[in-house]
């Protein structure tokens, strides 16, 4: 699924980070999420949403070819990941982060939970209304 980002609607509450972590890892933390909210204060005084657009640069950069395209998204083969961080450095959206426990990258599953929880509709799923996201 494709996402449309409305940075100007984001108020930096980070509910999206928690929803991502809970939905994908069953963990309650903002430290383990596949997206990133960048606060830019004191100036210019706004937030930038960083979200995976599945460009594939991480997979291309991986020296172990541990990131593969499967079912419409990039997936990490954990057993092949050497936690070198090359993919994180290669991410042009500056969204990829390491799992604090394993140091392996946290890849977006495209589940849409970030968009669903956002109380301000700052992350929109292209072509779908909120009702369709929940359905």
């Amino acid at each position: 699924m494709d996402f449309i980002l409305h940075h100007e609607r984001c108020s930096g509450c980070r509910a999206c980070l928690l929803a991502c972590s809970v939905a994908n890892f069953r963990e309650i933390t903002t430290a383990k999420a596949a997206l990133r909210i960048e606060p830019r204060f004191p100036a210019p005084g706004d937030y930038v949403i960083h979200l995976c657009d599945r460009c594939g640069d991480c997979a291309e950069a991986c020296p172990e070819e541990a990131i593969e395209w499967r079912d419409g998204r990039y997936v990490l083969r954990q057993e092949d990941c050497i936690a070198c961080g090359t993919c994180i450095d290669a991410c042009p959206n500056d969204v990829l982060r390491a799992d604090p426990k394993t140091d392996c990258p946290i890849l977006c599953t495209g589940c849409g939970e970030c968009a669903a929880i956002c109380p301000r509709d700052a992350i929109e799923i292209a072509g779908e209304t909120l009702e369709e996201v929940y359905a």
Partner: protein
Amino acid sequence: MKGYAGTILRIDLGSGRIEKQPLPERLAEDYIGGRGFVARLMWEELPPGIDPFDPANPFITATGPMSGHLLPASGKTHFGCKSPATGGYADSNMGGHFGPTLKYAGYDAMVLTGAAAEPGLLVIDDDAVEIQPAGDLWGAGSLTLEKRLKEDFGEDFEILTIGPAGENLVRFACISHDFGRQAGRTGIGAVLGSKRIKAVLVRGTGSLEAHDLEGLFAAAKRAYAAVREKPGFLGWTPEGTAGITNWVNEVGAFPTRNFQTSFSDHYEAINGKAILERLKVTDKGCFCCPTPCGKYGRARTSLGQVEVEGPEFESIALLGGACDLQTIEDVAHANHVCDELGLDTISGGVVAAWAIECYERGILSREEIGREVRFGDLASVVHLLEMTARREGLGDLLAEGSKRAAEKTGQGSLDFAIQVKGLEWSGYECRNAPGMMLSYMTADVGAHHNRSWVLGHDVVGSAASVHDLIAGGGEVKKLPKAVVGGQAKNVIASQHLRPAFDLLGICRLQFMELGFEVEHYEELFQLCTGRPLTWQELLETSERVWNLTRSVSVREVPGFGRASDYPPARLMNDPVPNGPNEGHCLSREEVDRLLDEYYDARGWDRQGRPTAETLKRLGLEDVAGGLPR
């Protein structure tokens, strides 16, 4: 214990000793969290009778069981210590992201005792805790410091700072966080300054355990959806707390020119609409909050350009009302100056207004102040704030707060030092609002509105949500004198209700401003912790905490009691000169009736001290034994 992080972090700043204490189950059961933890730990660990700046004064930080969880507005952090402003019980809270991150690092609460030998930064990086030298950061403004620390440590760290006011032990110095969130009241920033801690940084990469994660996730989605359905979601959120400015003027409760009157002609130049039209860059929300109060923006004034979060209503009321600043840009500028200096905008506004009135009356001279000062003049207000934060010249007197400053100055200036117990009055003038007057008189920390807010009762006779009150306003008209009698019941109910959210570690505004139902909180609490908790049980705990905080002040403040609960003479003797409440005021006799009714309903003696019987009823037998009789 599910929901909680499970540990209290204890640091003796003198010796550097660090202890990680398992969170006592009994503490969690009897006091829940947040303000409840602050109150109980203070009762047990504050050595009786010490000076607030004694290194032994514990500086307590506490979250609640719901802080950091995925549910609406779960970002509150509470701070407490013996108050430099009042000498009694103090707590102050803030939103933002610090508390949730502290919990992800593994700690529900943190207790700092002692004082560092040299100015330092306390850095908590999950398990690793260390004090680093502050070096040349000592002296920096709060906003400047936070920016620099974010650059040095990275955006994953959440940061508390104090400004020059905290370093210089100004009795109304605040704690700042996230470029515009403050735990503003009761002078807690000065206690952190007395411990020579310039900033606290925390990074947390762990996760919390919930009793029923799947159930909580589903309930959280329902809760967010329910908040979005409230009329206030689209009606209240755009302007946030500033949206009440018009209504407060329409009902004649806006503190104007040091509370000389209760209505400002220029209120439409400093209201929420003015923020949206002239300042706002973005909405800035606290952790997991669907209804952000924070309006971050930019203002240009005669003194230059500033970036500022706010102004929120309280800053508008005290800087735009009590100091009479005429434009939203001037209010924003003064707000920014307070934020950078680390001054509470409420107390800062009241103290500056008191000084200006002293100048107008010839009590303080141009030589003493260093320049002419006037109501409505930004440069005058900024001059007073800067002197205060640095304790320069007359600032050394103003830094003591309005009560101490007036006691020292004399010449009748105590009559118009607008405070209770030594804490300056926040943004609601009450000469025709007996319930709200009683709220201010009996708030445990001094004259603060967040413990109970019954202005809706005073004006429309009910507990309508703030959004409904604002939506129902729109007219300035002469109001009849309010009838004194029957206020205590509503005030007490509000004193249990509003601080109940402070036990849970979440913000009350979805409930108070939008009317989001209590059933959601009962359900979410149970899913987080696995413990059933009815709203009634929560309110009973809140009553226990209320009696405990009062008891701390009875123990700590010599002569504490009825005499500590009176408003300043101006608010009893001087009829309001103009506006909707022209001619009204509450007499001393009416104020006494309010107090008698309140003490009786609380089960306190007529001196305002909780009786042994009441304390025992609330499970505070040990407290009853520890009070002077």
